[in-house]
């Protein structure tokens, strides 16, 4: 049927994808705050990845601190040293690894859960959807910090526990958003066409609904990572984190326990907090920029 010179299906697909991507990048670039967030995140991720290249992890052990106790910032230790003589700068850089990992994984867990439940609830109407949404609502009602604290206290102290605690408490919001989006996608004619051609539930959900809710999910993930990073630091600060790893919240907890607050040792507690704030802010800015790209109504309003 098609003309002989027509490009192959694959080439067409790629051309379409490239065009969509170009359009996306152009729209995103119009949001200056979003660009700033992206740049800051790239820098943070790069630092976290390269940390082992210029930091000797032996110097981060409690017993291996190269400096004296609570040294003020100097040429050797740019951000001073902590209670064990470790360089605060090195600790903060190293902490980025745990904090970013936990943030990403926790956001991934909760978004995956929320997406599956949201699509299922949106696709299959009726009582099963009702039950799913009731469960979602119920989780939404539980005060997330209290639940996360309780979960983290109940399970053994490890990074995995923190990821689970955050993932389990953060998914309901995603589920709600995804369900709403699924309902609106399923009302469109191409779903009817897919059904008429014999597409089963799985086919419709996987090939048609999922790609169409993906943009929403992506924006939601970015916003959730920010939340997860703050939550991780909160749990570590409350002493529920893994004591053997270095995370931003953990450093703050140590600083507080070492009396840095009342003796005014600002270099111990200011950098980790700033790092949390900067990374969380960057994720929020990126998430808002993404929302703006995917939701033209929002963009217009700016």
């Amino acid at each position: 049927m098609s003309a002989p010179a027509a490009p192959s299906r694959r080439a067409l697909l790629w051309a379409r994808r490239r065009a969509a991507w170009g359009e996306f990048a152009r729209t995103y670039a119009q949001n200056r705050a979003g660009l700033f967030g992206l740049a800051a995140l790239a820098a943070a991720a790069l630092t976290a990845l390269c940390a082992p290249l210029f930091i000797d992890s032996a110097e981060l052990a409690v017993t291996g601190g190269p400096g004296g106790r609570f040294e003020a910032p100097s040429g050797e230790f740019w951000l001073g040293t902590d209670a064990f003589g470790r360089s605060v700068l090195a600790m903060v850089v190293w902490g980025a690894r745990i904090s970013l990992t936990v943030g990403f994984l926790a956001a991934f867990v909760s978004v995956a859960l929320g997406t599956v439940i949201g699509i299922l609830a949106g696709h299959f109407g009726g009582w099963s959807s009702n039950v799913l949404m009731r469960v979602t609502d119920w989780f939404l009602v539980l005060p997330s910090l209290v639940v996360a604290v309780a979960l983290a206290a109940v399970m053994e102290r490890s990074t995995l526990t923190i990821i689970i605690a955050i993932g389990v408490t953060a998914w309901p919001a995603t589920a709600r958003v995804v369900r709403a989006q699924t309902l609106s996608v399923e009302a469109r004619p191409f779903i009817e066409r897919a059904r008429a051609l014999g597409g089963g539930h799985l086919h419709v959900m996987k090939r048609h609904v999922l790609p169409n809710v993906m943009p929403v999910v992506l924006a939601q993930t970015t916003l959730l990572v920010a939340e997860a990073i703050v939550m991780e630091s909160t749990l570590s600060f409350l002493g529920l984190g893994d004591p053997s790893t270095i995370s931003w919240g953990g450093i703050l907890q140590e600083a507080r326990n070492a009396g840095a607050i009342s003796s005014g040792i600002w270099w111990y507690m200011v950098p980790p907090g700033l790092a949390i704030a900067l990374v969380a802010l960057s994720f929020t800015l990126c998430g808002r920029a993404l929302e703006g790209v995917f939701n033209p109504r929002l963009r217009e309003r700016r």
Partner: protein
Amino acid sequence: MTRSATAAAAPPEEPGAPGPGAAPGGPSRAARVLRYLGGRLLTAVVSLVAVMVTSFFLFRILPGDPVRAMTEGREVSVAQLEELRRQFGLDKPLWQQFTDYCLGLLRFDFGTSYQYRVPVAELIAERIGPTVLLAGTGTLVAALLGLVLGTRAAWRRGSAGDRATTAVALTLWSVPSFWLGLLLIVVLASGAGWLPGLFPTSGMSTPGVQGGFASAADVAHHMVLPVATMVAVVYAQYLLIMRSSVLDEMGADYLTTARAKGLRDALVLRRHAVPNALLPTVTLIFLNLGRVMGGVILIETVFAWPGLGSLFYSGLRVPDLPLVQALFVLFASAVIVMNLLADLVYPLLDPRVRT
């Protein structure tokens, strides 16, 4: 329902609608309202029951033997341990503990705290005041600040002021509240460098202070930093919601009409745009009120504020099962009740969802 008051609050949407009660669907509307109320109430009750069950089983998995924790540091005989176990009902099978717990909850009897050896209800009664004071003041200030700033930002959208307001709010929102609290303590309370300690570092009152006005002023003095911390972290969401809902109303025809009547800009904003834009924000405030209870844990821990949050945190460590269970139920039911209120209040505020 108080329909007349509602109609006054949101005038523009149904100008030509027949008077209340005159609609042919009168009785069926009442039935619908009842159905709606019943549904919401049922959901809330189911949620409450689920919370109670979760609370019991969640904390049973906590590591640590409560009886050991109670006798920490003292030499005790096996017989004494057994006696304690019996006294707190820990020797009974789990299902019996569970039924005792459920029956107790119905009578507002939460059992006896392992840690303090007093009824949990008494502890809660003693600590709930400070928490409500802190959370209430914080929410009030944050909501007002968010509403005012959000409205102004939306009204002058795109201006330098709008961008600055939004940027500051987003930045503060990203800051972990406990860190902000610590920072405030270092800068304003510990007396770092040339700055004197302006505010107390912790607690709610100075021991020696007596007399009505003096002690109220003392408590207010202690509250400044915790409330400031809470407001700084929370107000951003009110601001963003208010900003976007005012923006939503900006394009509406009734605003053009109001302007065409020759109303001044400020009046258009105050009388027409804001009342309509308030709806989503008010709901959010209600929804957050319960959530704030949980968030207060952190701030109370940082400032050693004698409230429920610090009580919960100290209870987790023991683990003081009756105390932690009761507080968990309390926090969650605060959210449930606030959600219910938001659901019930919303149709009263917004005639558009009432049908």
